[in-house]
């Protein structure tokens, strides 16, 4: 077998035992890896509560992991989300995936539950369980300092997860977060404090020459992308480069999505951070884009905030201090807490209480959230549960319990549809319509129209599902396409494949998630946006009109999507579609 290692490590924490599963080539080829293979395991326990010992946490690589295929250094982590009850998953950078693959594993499936805090160490085929009682309570930075992973990859949780924050994250290699869905809490529930992985092997590639050619094609395309490699692109300024664009397009969520323009934005942009912190390039192992930025202040290095963090800790909560953003980012990462959800919950609180924030208050509330103190206990539930508890559910700007990222959907109809239909809740990455609605790739679409968007969203969801399975970074697809990645995949695995074959696999992977969600009671009612977006306009200018989203046009597009996706009018999976895609069918 080429590309895949052929081994999946199954860990039972209750028994502190391991098993090795060796799925056949057919399984690998059908589910690819990453999100696909992880979803296959998640489906087997789909109806269990997220905190049931039988619920799995899956950490998977893909066939491209550990090869020279560009941007293949990401891992995919899945479980059931404690925040939403949906499929909970996150793509994470760093070197976790590469080290895991080099250790000889395509993925890890963790089930059971430890009675005491535990660390899992994997060095090639050796798996050990370490007592982590002394590390319990430490933040992720301290854990990193204590363990000193060296060349190994370290994934750990912080106090936020231990204290039950519903949007707790997993921090990998200090700077990379599996941020959304509350996966940190999934680890904490099983009493896993950390995972340390190192490997010395190599991925087997069927046709290295062909892979090198595919790599050159992809690099040539990314070099031609202003968003990725241009002097204002991600490689130079990080994802924060998007900040000015969102302001310029009047899509910056401001005051908990009550406005779409933040008047202070021009002095809070990526250029401002670059001037103050002189960030250096950093990124996932093997990546040439290197979008992660590490800045310096008073001789100390620190991760620069990503775009969503920059936007939500300024415009969304009404603050105008870059230092606060850097500190909030650092604190969230140390505590192991999703920045988007944390800031959104604070924005929700601000709207409900009418109380503005000082930087100190923001930091103090972040502490309270992570440590489960006072008001922080309620905030730790996330915006949806918090707003409901406060008797103001309309103030939660979330879809299916997950807070929305920093793209206001009134400024992009595809984004509105993508948010509503996403299988993990308010997520911009499932369909990533920002690619064509804002970045003009592969070509520009009319951001103020729903015309054609139902099919575009469906195809993009399939594409991103398989991208998260191969694995590659979604940013690359601002430039390259599945056409080039299919060639890379074929070169690695030796199995003939095409862009269209990969899209079909993506469709299977995504439909499987719709089935898992449906088995947990989700349907068309949940595929919706907060009412505000249909009733209140954004911040228009003379040339850019941001009206409320046309409710009927939205519903029509959603209906079309269900038809195109092969779902019932109620948004539920259908037996014939599932069977046509080769998926197991449960009566819903």
């Amino acid at each position, binding site marked *: 077998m080429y590309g895949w290692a052929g081994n999946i490590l199954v860990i039972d924490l209750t028994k502190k035992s391991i098993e090795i599963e060796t799925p056949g080539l057919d399984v690998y080829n059908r589910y690819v890896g990453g999100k696909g293979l992880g979803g296959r395991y998640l489906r087997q326990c789909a109806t269990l509560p997220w905190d049931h010992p039988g619920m799995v946490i899956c950490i998977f690589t893909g066939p491209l992991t550990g090869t020279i295929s560009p941007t293949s250094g990401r891992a995919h982590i899945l479980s059931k989300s404690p925040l939403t009850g949906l499929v909970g998953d996150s793509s994470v950078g760093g070197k976790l995936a590469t080290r895991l693959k080099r250790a000889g594993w395509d993925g890890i499936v963790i089930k059971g539950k430890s009675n005491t805090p535990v660390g899992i160490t994997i060095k090639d085929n050796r798996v050990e369980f370490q007592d982590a009682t002394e590390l319990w309570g430490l933040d992720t930075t301290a854990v990193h300092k204590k363990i000193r992973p060296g060349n190994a990859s370290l994934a750990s949780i912080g106090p936020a997860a231990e204290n039950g924050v519903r949007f707790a994250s997993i921090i990998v290699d200090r700077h990379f977060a599996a941020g959304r869905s509350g996966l940190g809490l999934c680890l904490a529930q099983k009493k896993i404090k950390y995972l340390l992985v190192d490997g010395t092997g190599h991925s087997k590639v069927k046709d290295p020459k062909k892979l090198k050619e595919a790599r050159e094609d992809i690099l040539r395309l990314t*070099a031609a992308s*202003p968003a990725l490699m241009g002097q204002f692109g991600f490689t130079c300024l990080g994802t924060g480069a*998007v*900040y000015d*664009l969102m302001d*310029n397009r009047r899509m910056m969520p401001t005051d908990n999505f009550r406005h779409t323009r933040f008047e202070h934005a021009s002095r809070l942009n990526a250029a401002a951070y670059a001037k103050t912190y002189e960030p250096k390039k950093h990124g996932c192992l093997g990546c040439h884009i290197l979008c992660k930025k590490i800045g310096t202040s008073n001789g100390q290095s620190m991760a620069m905030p990503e775009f969503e963090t920059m936007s939500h800790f300024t415009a969304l909560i009404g603050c105008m201090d870059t230092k606060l953003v850097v500190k909030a980012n650092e604190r969230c990462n140390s505590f192991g807490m999703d920045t988007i959800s944390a800031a959104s919950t604070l924005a929700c609180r601000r709207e409900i209480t009418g109380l503005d924030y000082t930087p100190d208050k923001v930091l103090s509330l972040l502490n309270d959230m992570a440590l489960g103190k006072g008001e922080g206990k309620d905030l730790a539930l996330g915006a949806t549960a918090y707003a409901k508890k406060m008797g103001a559910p309309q103030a939660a700007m979330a879809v299916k319990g997950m807070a929305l990222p920093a793209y206001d959907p009134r400024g992009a109809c595809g984004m509105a549809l993508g948010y509503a239909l996403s299988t993990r809740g308010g997520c911009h990455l499932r369909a990533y319509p920002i690619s064509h609605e804002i970045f003009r790739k592969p070509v*520009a*679409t009319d951001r103020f129209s729903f015309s*054609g968007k139902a099919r575009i969203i469906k195809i993009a969801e399939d594409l991103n599902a398989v991208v998260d399975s191969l694995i590659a970074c979604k940013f690359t697809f601002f430039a390259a396409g599945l056409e080039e990645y299919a060639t890379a995949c074929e070169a690695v695995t030796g199995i003939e494949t095409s862009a*269209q074959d990969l899209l079909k696999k993506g469709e299977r992977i995504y439909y499987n998630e719709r089935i898992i969600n449906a088995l947990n009671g989700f349907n068309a009612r949940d595929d919706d946006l907060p009412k505000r977006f249909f009733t209140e306009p954004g911040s228009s200018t003379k040339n850019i009109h941001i009206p409320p989203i046309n409710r009927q046009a939205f519903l029509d597009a959603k209906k079309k999507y269900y038809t195109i996706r092969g779902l019932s009018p109620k948004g539920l999976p259908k037996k014939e579609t599932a069977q046509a895609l080769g998926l197991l069918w449960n009566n819903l």
Partner: protein
Amino acid sequence: MEQLVNKYADKLVKAGLGQTSGPAQPLIGGLDDTLVWNRKADEIHVLENVFKGLTINSLVFLRPKEPYGNLINFLAEGAFNSTPKSFGLIQPKDCETRTFLHDLPVIKEFCADQIVRVLKKRKSVIIAPGKTNDNFKGPAIVAHGTVSPEQGFVTISSVCFASFIKFFTDYLEALQTGTATADAHDLFDSVIPYLAPMQKKFPELIPSPFPTEETVYSAIIEAGQKTVEYGLVDSYFGNVSCLWNGTLYISQTGSSLDELSGCIDPVPMDGSTSAGLTASSELTAHLATISHTGCKAILHGHPKFSVILSMDCDPAEKAACAFNEQCHIKCPKKRFAGSTPIVPGEVGTGPFGLCNTLPQALTQAESAIVYGHGLFTIGKNNFSEAFRTMMEVEDLCRNTYFEKIRFLRKT
């Protein structure tokens, strides 16, 4: 969708690739929950099955008008007479093909299964049945999109451009090496009448200095439109920029030069914003050119004979060159078209990006050709100077090309 399929059918006609009636009438299908076509046609029953076999949202079908049809037919025949490795593939070496299309697959039958088989891997397929097939008149190009019919339009535009460039460069090289066939001679002679005559009259463009920002936008929009109108670029390609009050105004990536309204990014020269994130891929080259030369306007088009001549290299020298498979990035020779330097470089900012070669070249002349890609011209104050230079360089290249052909055919 209806609006989009009609828009891009019209654009294919305006681009000189299709016609409003007859065989070269574009056929475009767009699919959301239902499939719509811009017109009725016999080909639809096959193309509907192509839709069924692929995860796409649009298909563009075109029998390109002359000279493209005959050129593509000729190249397609060559593709079926080539080595096993490149059998059924046209392999142009221009920048667009290298970067975005990789190669141009050809099949002989207008059959859904075969079209699907090719489009699963590539953005386009050429159907060239040859002379014996009475059921389907070729050649035709089919291209698909997953987001918009614009993708198919762009691909077909690129296929036609690449085919044109390939035939004329191949023919020159064939004459230089004494390998030109009678068919190639005949085709060359037959397509000459289809070439648009050279424009002699320079357009009147908005004069500088530009009093307001609004005038800057208007000047850029006008320069883009005229560049397309004068045949100096196919509408989708190229880029335009203008420096005004410390800000570079530049066309956005993937914008059509004849539709620049709303597609211009202001990029402050002091780097105080990253609004240039959606600017042209050549933003870095434009900024460096402005810094190196002090010019105020930059025009970039793909005039065909400038591109063709940029790829002309003495066959004996080429054979002896260590970089003869990497001319586009590593050509070691100082080459000129008249006084216009020809430089290597790829799109964008990579290690071999044209941002590393072009700005320096433009300090020596007011124009520079990037190998197999296109022509950049600068204006000290406005677009009139850049436009005049672009027309003059293209005229020079076209005349030089035909002089070479005449000379070689005599000898």
